[in-house]
């Protein structure tokens, strides 16, 4: 039985017991007809489940790759002085680490989750545009092949930070900058195709009776994320193209000598960049909004306000970009405008946190691993939110800007925020994907190692930044030595902890206790009405939701 989402404002307890008509959907018999095998199964796949799996594995591979780069960074910063790498290579590591984690790890992970879960959550047989789905995934590995490959060229890969501020990335960039530009173009095309697919699927392929306000929060947040993607990825494409023409074709978009403006680059970049950070957190909100109720035994508190809060965060995200640029010297009026708008984002974000806490309040909680990660998310993401609020205060930002305080802030929201939510999602849906329960003990090891090491890694960075250590430096003054050492140890520990997860997932795929269709007793949603593992075809006949 299932009742995907609570109906409407007028709470009708009778309705709460309605059952979705789902048995029709499970026709597993259809399944063996020709589920493709071998390499071509993956290469030619148009199945949302296989493509979702591809996305997720790709994202995990990139997570480890970007993580390896972080290990190099932390090893160099283990003590003052230059020990392991050249400063130029250090800059390439910080740059490519950022790009790989943002575009290679976090975004594809969410797209993978969207592929797997959205059709099953709305009762659709597949994504609306399955061939485009295949294409949007398969161009991605090439983008990263180009990006990471450029590291091995003479002069090295991109070394101007993932934000590639002009003119450091134009006149002063390495010869390989064109490859960086093309790889970002490909990533952008992939993201836009993925977003279009998500929107078309959600708008057109909902099962009968699956009205807007019955959509699971994950579907809602992804729908809004997809609109953000379509709005801002072209802006990023424009920014990299202008970098390309400035560097290779003699234009002067960002060169004052030719009538351009280097600060305009930052405006364009952050007009993309700020919505981008919400692209990386909104789907997390959806995941957490699914998991907290499932393990609290209560419905999500304030479903409607959650939807409205997500929309307002998305809208506000277009009005705050210049808070990344307070030190570039804007008029006071502009600084005040962007400060107030940024502070305002705390309101809908706060509403979300309060709603989750209210969902837990007077529930009957159990603490399976997805729930542990979800609780960790709420606490640590909120800490990142607090430091974000501090960063919004312009006079204080003049001290925080471009220091480790900022590094601490965005890693709290991205690692213990976005990445933890992805982990939570993986534990929550692994039984559905593989048909097996994951190793409980191993998952607890993964959780506790991760949560301790992630705080050893990122919490002391606040102190480093406040004490005055700039970010993106390969060497530092001696008063920063002790804390950097602690941070590095936390970094190595966090990196190693993720190998536990890798082992756990492999183990879970290969076997384990068989999962039922609905391994989490109190979980809600159509995805739990199909067997585990989800058969090759699901919902070939739409379920009826009322």
């Amino acid at each position, binding site marked *: 039985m299932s009742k995907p989402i609570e109906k409407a404002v007028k709470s009708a307890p009778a309705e709460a017991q309605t059952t979705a008509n789902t048995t029709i959907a499970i026709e597993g018999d259809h399944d063996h007809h020709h589920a493709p095998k071998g390499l071509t199964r993956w290469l030619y796949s148009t199945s949302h489940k296989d493509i979702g799996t591809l996305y997720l594995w790709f994202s995990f591979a990139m997570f480890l790759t970007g993580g390896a780069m972080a290990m190099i960074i932390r090893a160099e910063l283990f003590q003052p002085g230059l020990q392991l790498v050249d400063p130029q290579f250090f800059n390439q590591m910080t740059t490519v680490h950022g790009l790989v984690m943002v575009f290679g790890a976090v975004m594809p992970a969410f797209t993978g989750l969207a592929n797997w879960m959205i059709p099953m959550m709305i009762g659709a047989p597949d994504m609306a545009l399955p061939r485009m789905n295949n294409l949007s995934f398969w161009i991605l590995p090439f983008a990263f092949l180009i990006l990471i490959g450029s590291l091995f060229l003479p002069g090295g890969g991109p070394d101007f930070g993932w934000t590639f501020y002009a*003119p450091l990335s134009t006149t002063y960039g390495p010869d390989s900058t064109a490859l960086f530009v093309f790889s970002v173009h490909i990533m952008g095309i992939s993201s836009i195709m993925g977003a279009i697919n998500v929107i078309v699927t959600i708008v057109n392929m909902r099962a009968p009776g699956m009205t807007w306000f019955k959509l699971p929060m994950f579907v809602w947040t992804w729908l809004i994320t997809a609109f953000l993607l379509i709005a801002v990825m072209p802006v990023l494409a424009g920014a990299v193209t202008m970098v390309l023409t400035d560097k290779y074709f003699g234009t002067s978009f960002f060169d004052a000598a030719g009538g351009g403006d280097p600060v305009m680059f930052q405006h364009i970049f952050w007009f993309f960049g700020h919505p981008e950070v919400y692209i990386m957190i909104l789907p997390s909100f959806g995941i957490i909004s699914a998991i907290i109720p499932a393990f609290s035994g209560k419905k999500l508190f304030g479903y409607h306000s959650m939807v409205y809060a997500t929309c307002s965060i998305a809208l506000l995200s277009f009005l705050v970009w210049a808070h990344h640029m307070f030190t570039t*010297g804007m008029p006071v009026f502009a600084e005040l405008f962007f400060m107030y708008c940024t502070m305002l984002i705390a309101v809908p974000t706060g509403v979300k946190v309060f709603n989750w806490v*209210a969902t837990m309040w007077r*529930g009957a909680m159990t603490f399976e691993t997805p729930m542990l990660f979800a609780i960790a998310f709420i606490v640590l993401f909120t800490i990142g939110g607090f430091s974000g609020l501090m960063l919004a*205060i312009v006079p204080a930002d003049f001290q925080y800007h471009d220091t480790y305080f900022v590094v601490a802030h965005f890693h709290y929201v991205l690692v213990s925020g976005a990445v933890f939510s992805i982990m939570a999602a993986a534990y929550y849906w692994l039984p559905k994907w593989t048909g097996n329960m994951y190793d409980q003990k191993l998952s607890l090891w993964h959780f506790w190692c991760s949560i301790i090491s992630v705080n050893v890694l990122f919490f002391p960075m606040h102190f480093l930044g406040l*004490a005055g250590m700039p970010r993106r430096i390969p060497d530092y003054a001696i008063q920063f030595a002790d804390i950097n050492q602690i941070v590095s140890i936390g970094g190595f520990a966090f990196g190693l902890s993720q190998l536990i997860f890798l082992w756990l997932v492999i183990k879970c795929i290969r076997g384990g206790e068989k999962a039922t269709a609905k391994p989490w007793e109190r979980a809600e949603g159509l995805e739990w009405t199909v067997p585990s593992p989800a058969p090759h075809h699901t919902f070939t006949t739409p379920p009826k939701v009322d």
Partner: protein
Amino acid sequence: MKRLATTLALLTNVIFITFSSSSWSEQNDYNMTRGVTGISEQVYELHMLIFYICCAIAFIVFGVMFFSIFRHRKSKGAVAANFHESTKVEIIWTVIPVIILIAMAIPATKTLVAMEDTSQSDLTVKITGSQWKWHYSYFGEDVEFFSLLATSQKEIEGIEAKGAHYLLEVDNPLVLPINRKVRFLMTSDDVIHSWWVPDFAVKKDTIPGFINEAWTKIDEPGVYRGQCAELCGRAHGFMPVVVHAMAEDDFDQWMSDKKQELALQKAAAQEALTQDLSMEDLMGQGESIYTARCAVCHQANGEGIPGAFPAIKGSEIAKGPVMAHIDVLVNGRAGTAMQAFANQLSDQEIAAVITYQRNAWGNDTGDTVQASDVNAFKAQDSAKEEI
């Protein structure tokens, strides 16, 4: 009398250095500095205020959450309640944060408006960033100089022990008076840098082709250290800012001494034009300049970094005509990271470093370049421009 004044100035300098070095090491390693200006104090207070507000909110929210986690668990026999919507509650927890935010925004706005008011300054200093040094120019005083990292490469590579001010020391610090409002005009010659001194709560980007403004009014004499805050390429981490703040009298004395020093330097440069140095002298001087100014990009072995910085070893420039070589150093290369050194090095120094480049690493052209050659090139060059 003059000597006495100089000695005194020197002595006060030493005292400042010791004083401030102790204040640097005593300064809080875990929190923002209160700094030494009225503004930095206000910024610190603002920072702490918001920090405490965040702590209070965190205490309440996490408190409720963990209470719930410990009390409302199924294993303790908790039975889930059924509520899941309340417009009243939603309105309350929308309105309360808005009120808190307004309470934060008011002091923040006041401080910000004060920080951006650069009017009525007593002194203006133009700060120019370039890869990877600062240039300071005092308006109306005809005093200007470059400020470079003073930490040796050996300390960085761990061959020598690191000093107390490792990476936070420069050859020529910016000298400022206390109790006077100093306005900074900031720009850059190449990429974006950011001039930051935590003790003043001043951080402003220096942007090529544009001029930014900031100001400070220092309360206490001392040495204040900061760094470039905006990623500016390979040696971004090696671009410190050091400011000596002096009592007004000492500052005026320093200013007149500095003018004298610069005048002497000019005279020496003029004299150098008439002197020819030996190959040995040129090579010796050239090597030390090369190490300080050129090796960051072109590397100590002259091989550069392929794809990023060209080699000098065996290059067409270093083995070709001398005048073309001088041209590159004097005027730089437009559209590349190679900057013009005409204003950074004296003719004598340019001559020495060119001689070094033309004879080191097996370039062995046997050429010696003299200050007069460089001077002659400059004269020719400016004549050409006038035409």
